[in-house]
């Protein structure tokens, strides 16, 4: 595996003023846009490419399904896909945070089911105002997360077992809450059902939002570059910022235009994306996020650094359970019913798998909020594509397994070289 690297140009004479972070003479120096690209090429060669391979796997899956069924990439189906992704994606986002601190929550399925039951009973049967039902469900979710966190940090009960107990317990509660009436229909006219099924951004609004996002990215990048220069640190070339913004703008505009030929961009999906973006910011830019990674990477080191490790665990578990209830509410709204089987079946595993496929490690400390988005799109694309193929259910299960495996093998293959480069 010792592939020979092409000789790299190396300048031994130290330049007069070099940024503080580029002064070591062992660093391969790369400047300007070409430098960025050649750096990227090196990273691809050495397998240090984050979620790029899963992304390529996704594109491959899309191409294959499109060939097998030309309706796969139709606007209708893509809009459906976005609607299918949102509820489970929100759950997977919570899973990411829990996995980051090297814990696991097996009860996300039961909790999402419980949330739908609470919504059904309080809103429909007891006629509470809808916001109160939602707040109640979320509060119960948060409370459960707190209890998990308490049991884990206080008694050291492994979260695997606590949440397994939760899985059973809250399934029981869900059955008990829905007990007498079974499934409860949510009125189609309530805003929460409308939100989940028929609220779409009008094209002008979608374009405006996308424009603002691109603007935000540019402003952020430029400010950051300024501050780095002021601190005497190296910065990437300005051309790269511009090109990045243009690419994002084009992709966003194309997607919006295409979706607009059908219903458009779903508000529920937008909410999911916004949640992911907020979580990404929290995780990468705030102390809390830094500490989440620290605790997941080395709990003892974090404790010795004076971090309140217990609070971090509790907060992570609370986010996991709260987002699971939120996802459950979204799923119920989309189904327009709170059912006994809500949150059952494969909800648990699919949500966790989405986080893992998106690139979050099961062993803590590695991953990003965006992996929830990427992972759930991959998984739901597989489910959705197979549904369109009209296979018998045995074949469907088999093909799902095979495609899932393929997607991760592509990912793994492109990372394979990493171990031999010593970052394993």
């Amino acid at each position, binding site marked *: 595996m010792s592939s020979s690297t092409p000789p790299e140009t190396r300048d031994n004479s130290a330049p007069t003023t070099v940024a*503080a*972070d580029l002064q*070591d003479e*062992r*660093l391969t120096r790369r400047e300007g846009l070409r430098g960025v690209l050649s750096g990227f090429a090196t990273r691809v060669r050495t397998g240090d490419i984050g979620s790029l391979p899963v992304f390529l796997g996704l594109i491959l899956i899309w191409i294959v399904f499109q060939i097998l069924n030309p309706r796969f990439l139709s606007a209708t189906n893509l809009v459906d896909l976005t609607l299918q992704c949102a509820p489970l994606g929100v759950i997977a986002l919570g899973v990411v945070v829990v996995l980051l601190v090297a814990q696991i929550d097996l009860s996300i399925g039961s909790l999402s089911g419980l949330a739908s039951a609470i919504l059904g009973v309080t809103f429909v049967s007891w006629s509470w105002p809808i916001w109160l039902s939602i707040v109640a469900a979320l509060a119960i979710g948060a409370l459960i997360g707190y209890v998990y966190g308490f049991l884990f940090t206080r008694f050291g009960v492994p979260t695997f077992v606590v949440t397994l107990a939760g899985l059973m317990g809250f399934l029981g509660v869900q059955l008990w809450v829905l007990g007498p009436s079974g499934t409860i229909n949510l009125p189609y006219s309530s805003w929460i059902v409308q939100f989940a099924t028929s609220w779409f951004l009008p094209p002008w609004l979608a374009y405006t939002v996308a424009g603002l996002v691109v603007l935000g990215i540019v402003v952020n990048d430029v400010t*950051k570059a300024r*501050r*780095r220069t*002021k*601190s*005497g*640190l190296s910065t990437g070339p300005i051309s790269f910022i511009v090109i990045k913004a243009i690419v994002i703008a084009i992709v966003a505009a194309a997607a919006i235009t295409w979706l607009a030929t059908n219903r458009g961009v779903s508000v529920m999906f937008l909410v999911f994306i916004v949640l992911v973006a907020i979580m990404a910011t929290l995780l990468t*830019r*705030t*102390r809390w996020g*830094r*500490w989440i*990674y*620290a605790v*997941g*990477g*080395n709990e*003892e*080191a*974090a*404790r*010795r*650094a*004076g*971090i*309140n490790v217990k609070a971090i665990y509790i907060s992570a578990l609370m986010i996991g359970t709260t987002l699971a209830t939120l996802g459950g509410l979204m799923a119920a709204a989309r189904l327009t019913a709170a059912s006994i089987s809500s949150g059952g079946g494969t909800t648990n595993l699919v949500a966790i798998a989405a986080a893992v496929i998106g690139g979050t490690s099961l062993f803590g*400390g*590695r991953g990003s909020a965006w992996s929830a988005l990427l992972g759930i799109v991959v998984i739901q694309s597989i489910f959705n594509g197979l549904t369109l193929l009209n296979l018998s259910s045995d074949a469907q299960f088999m093909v799902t397994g095979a495609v899932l495996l393929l997607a991760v093998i592509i990912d793994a293959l492109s990372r394979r070289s990493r171990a031999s480069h*010593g*970052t394993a």
Partner: protein
Amino acid sequence: MTLASEIDEPRASAREPVLSIRNISKGFGAVRALTDVELDVYAGEVVALVGDNGAGKSTLVKILAGVHSADHGTITFNGSPVSIPSPTASRELGIATVFQDLALCDNLDVVANLFLGRELGTGMINEELMEQRSWELLRQLSAKIPSVRIAVASLSGGQRQTVAIARSLIGEPQIVILDEPTAALGVAQTAEVLNLIERLRERGLGVILISHNMADVQAVADRVVVLRLGRNNGVFRTADVSYEDIVAAITGATDNPVSSRSAAHPTEKDAL
């Protein structure tokens, strides 16, 4: 065995020690790691804590850092008895510790590790400021780290140790505990750390230095406290004591592998 009180206290003998521990014992299962250990540290003093492997030095450090709790014994800080139940408590007392096992988060980069728990910036973390400060800190220790944006997992042993030492420079401690800080350091970095210790002493801090390198100990320490098999085994003023005496106290015999080795190799420098 010589106790701290039996020899002259350094500089101002009327002064109270900043940190004073008495009768500390600690057992792990069937092993008694520490038995009735005592130690005083005065402001503006460097105390070297030496002893054989497994003598209990790191265990004592961990008790002071709030990582372990002692089975019995008392700790007095600035004159009042304290308990140190957690690392946070230790930090709040004003004790900064560099652990022998470094306690770094391997998945985080150098900057994040340096400022862990003390991130700069209001609201959002100010990465640029932190990176700039990191370079300053590391240059001060002659660190040879090519990039501060790589995970510490991929640093060399000495680079990791430099990062751990640099962390103790952040914040305003009263006592700095360094558990074998120069074990993995190169000659230049070691010299910088010794300089640093002297600067700390000049600023009036108490320093506990653990080291197996007697040359380093003799270069910077004011007093040497020897532990042997978990018990106090002598306290010496550095100025008054010879290398051979310290080694004898550490190994518990004047006839030890070091002495027999230097007898066999008379050409070697006596500092070994």
